[in-house]
């Protein structure tokens, strides 16, 4: 028996698309991909959305998500071509020989069943173990993956454990039936950076200890560099570059790979704070209705005209709540907001049209922030009508100007949001907020849903527009690379409090407080062995304390 576990030859994958108003037709989304995976090795599949990396991962289980079909080529697993094997054999393959770990464990666990029942199900179904053996093995895996109380955590329901824990449970679920191959599909993407590092280490150790082979799918090259032996770079269904990890990271050959490696190349010179502030948040304390604790505690920050304040923190830190308070959606319990020299009413109803116009917002999900039945021209034109009473040719001229500013141009005027890419949608949202000629824009995770290269383009655009329009940004994000790229000052939030606040250079220079140190050191870096270094460093520190 050869050591090659998975052999993919000229794999072609297609799908039927149903464009509105047109006849359904078939398209090809993966155009002939080849790779080999030996037992116990890890291959990283990397690329942006639409690259076909998840589709290829699922093809190793002979599975097509949605209407996706495996149209050609060969996928050999354990010495047989699974695209030609009968359906009963496919069932043995899935869960028995190849297992899958998805991006969102929270959605991938059945909310109605206990974790243990779901973790052992495949092992029992494929008669790899008896129920009792499988449970024992699951507990071992829980312990190995660093889950708290490994003997009893299986008795809980998915909603009773945290997101990071659930992602480890998902890994246990995949490893429980002793598969030969595990497909990890963005397993840490949905996690906070400080959680990601632990889960990443747990997954890496589990792979090493069980000797399982893995396909590791991600868009984050820095992450895949930590876990894989080989890397395959994919773009729009084609292989761009395929080689060992060291070569791809340190000596990329293709332009596209080089761009991925050197992403976040934006340099932004920090502006000095001016004496006046466009927005001044003083002593804000807030809680949601029905909760008996405060979500924000005594928050104080200033934003200077034409500058960018980055509010950074992990999920639950209160950064989006702060945005809700500033926009008036959540009246604060205490504290004051001064905007453009006047006191803002805490409640949205008490704000004038001028207040609304000068304070705009851009959201994370550009596609749900736009009416899908309106054209780009209508969407951008609405604030022009509403705030400036523009009509006809005057309005049209301004819309075209704005479309030029966001680098799309007049030809996009009559398109619908569904016809735009993710980055283009976000650009339209930016134009819509600029149309109101605001003094300040709140950007809530505006690049989080975008691929790195596209996100870079959006950040560059925002910086350019800031120079032209002299608008201030309150930039809410969990991504420290984004913070470095665009901010003038930074507020680090943790559990509803601002734990560190100052100019970018101050906040990002030592000495750090404990939380900021943890946050900064958790951001994956694009060099081999980073993960081990950080974990070793932390162990030493905690031993020293």
């Amino acid at each position, binding site marked *: 028996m050869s050591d090659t576990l998975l052999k993919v030859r000229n794999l072609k994958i297609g799908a039927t698309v149903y464009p509105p108003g047109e006849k359904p037709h078939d398209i090809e989304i993966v155009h002939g991909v080849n790779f080999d995976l030996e037992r116990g090795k890890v291959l990283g599949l990397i690329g942006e959305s639409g690259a076909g990396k998840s589709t290829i991962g699922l093809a190793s289980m002979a599975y097509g998500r949605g209407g996706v079909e495996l149209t050609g080529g060969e996928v050999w697993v354990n010495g047989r071509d699974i695209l030609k094997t009968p359906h009963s054999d496919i069932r043995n393959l899935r869960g028995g020989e190849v297992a899958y770990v998805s991006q969102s464990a929270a959605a991938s666990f059945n909310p109605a069943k206990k974790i243990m029942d779901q973790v052992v199900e495949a092992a029992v179904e494929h008669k790899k173990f008896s129920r009792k053996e499988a449970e024992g093995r699951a507990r071992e895996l829980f312990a190995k993956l660093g889950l708290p109380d490994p003997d009893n955590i299986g008795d*809980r329901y998915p909603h009773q454990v945290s997101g990071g824990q659930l992602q480890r449970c998902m890994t246990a679920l995949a490893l429980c039936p002793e598969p030969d191959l595990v497909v990890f599909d963005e397993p840490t993407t949905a996690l906070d950076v400080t959680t990601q590092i632990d889960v990443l280490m747990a997954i890496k150790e589990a792979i090493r200890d069980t000797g399982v082979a893995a396909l590791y799918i991600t868009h984050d090259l820095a992450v895949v560099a930590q876990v894989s032996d080989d890397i395959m770079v994919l773009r729009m269904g084609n292989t761009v570059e395929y080689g060992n990890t060291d070569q791809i990271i340190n000596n990329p050959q293709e332009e596209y790979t080089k761009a991925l490696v050197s992403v976040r190349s934006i340099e932004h010179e920090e502006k000095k704070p001016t004496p006046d502030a466009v927005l001044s948040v003083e002593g804000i304390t807030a809680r949601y209705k029905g909760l008996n604790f405060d979500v924000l505690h005594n928050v104080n920050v200033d934003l200077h005209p034409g500058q960018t304040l980055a509010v950074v923190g992990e999920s639950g830190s209160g950064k989006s709540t702060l945005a809700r308070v500033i926009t008036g959606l959540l009246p604060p319990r205490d504290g004051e907001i001064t905007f453009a020299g006047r006191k803002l009413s805490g409640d949205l109803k008490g704000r004038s049209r001028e207040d609304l116009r000068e304070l705009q917002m851009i959201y994370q999900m550009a596609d749900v922030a736009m009416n899908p039945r309106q054209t780009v021209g209508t969407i951008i034109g609405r604030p022009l009508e509403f705030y400036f009473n523009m009509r006809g040719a005057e309005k049209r001229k301004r819309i075209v100007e704005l479309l030029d500013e966001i680098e799309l141009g007049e030809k996009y005027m009559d398109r619908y949001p569904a016809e735009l890419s993710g980055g283009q949608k976000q650009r339209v949202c930016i134009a819509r907020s600029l149309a109101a000629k605001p003094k300040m824009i709140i950007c809530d995770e505006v690049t989080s849903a975008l691929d790195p290269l596209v996100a870079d383009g959006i950040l560059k655009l925002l910086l350019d527009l800031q120079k032209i329009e002299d608008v201030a940004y309150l930039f809410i994000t969990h991504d420290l690379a984004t913070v470095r790229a665009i901010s003038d000052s930074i507020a680090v939030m943790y559990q509803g409090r601002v734990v560190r606040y100052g100019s970018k250079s101050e906040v990002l220079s030592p000495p750090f407080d404990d939380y900021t140190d943890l946050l900064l050191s958790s951001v994956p870096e694009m060099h081999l062995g980073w993960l081990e270094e950080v974990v070793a460093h932390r162990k030493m520190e905690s031993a020293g304390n």
Partner: protein
Amino acid sequence: MHPIIKLVSQRLALGLLLLFGASALIFGLTEALPGDAAQAVLGQSATPEALANLREEMGLNRPALTRYFEWLGGILQGDLGQSLTNKLDIAESIGKRLGNTLFLACAAAVVSVPLAIFLGLLAVRYRNRWPDKLISAITLTTVSIPEFLIGYVVIYFVSVKLGWFSSLAMINDTMSFGQKLNAIALPAFVLTLVVLAQMMRMTRAAILNLMQSAYIETAELKGLSNFQVIARHAFPNAISPIVNVVMLNLAYLVVGVVVVEVVFVYPGMGQYLVDSVTKRDVPVVLACGVVFAAVYIGLNMVADIVSILANPRLRHPK
């Protein structure tokens, strides 16, 4: 306090409040009708003096609010009053007839609920293929035809032509359980046809909706068979919408049987209500209204409570 206990007691309190409101509404509406019980007893040709005397005797001259609370107090003590036409105790008459109606409804439910859910699961398993289309076509056809028409068609073919069952669904206390079942076979069959479609379609829709979930993909990637995926992973999460539609249909089985009972001359609540309305027997109509309201609200309350209990987030808080 456990959140479940709180939620369930809230539902119970709300149900009682709703029932109280319904009783007021029923009483108010019959009050608003032209004529009153005295008029009904004496008929159109009664002299004003006779009417006044009877009103005095029956206490109808007192304010409506007083009479409402008296009536409500009576209900709370199990006293539904007396029938105007035959002077019999209403509670006793209703008790027997409600028993008959519930018996018929239960028989129909025992067949239709499991059948509807099974057909729904089957339709999901073979969705957009011929079994799914066949199930949908048949159930939609039966629900589209008015039940009295189905009733008469069934009587024509099964009782008249084939002679398998009697067209009259008369039952009494001397009959054995088997004989009773035999007697109600036809109305139960018709009711099943009427309620099947909605429950089956809802089961299908609720489960299809869940089949898009990521955890269904997880189950498929574990190598489970299609039916295991549906029954083990989709169904438990579809309980809440399914229970809601099942309860709605059970309530319909009790409250909406009037037509079917009349067609098959079945001695249930529906017949009783129709008879009393024609005789303008107001106290009986009131009592029937309250009983129907109680059944309807009660069953929907059960559906709410089952939905709460079926939610693992509420059953097992963090």
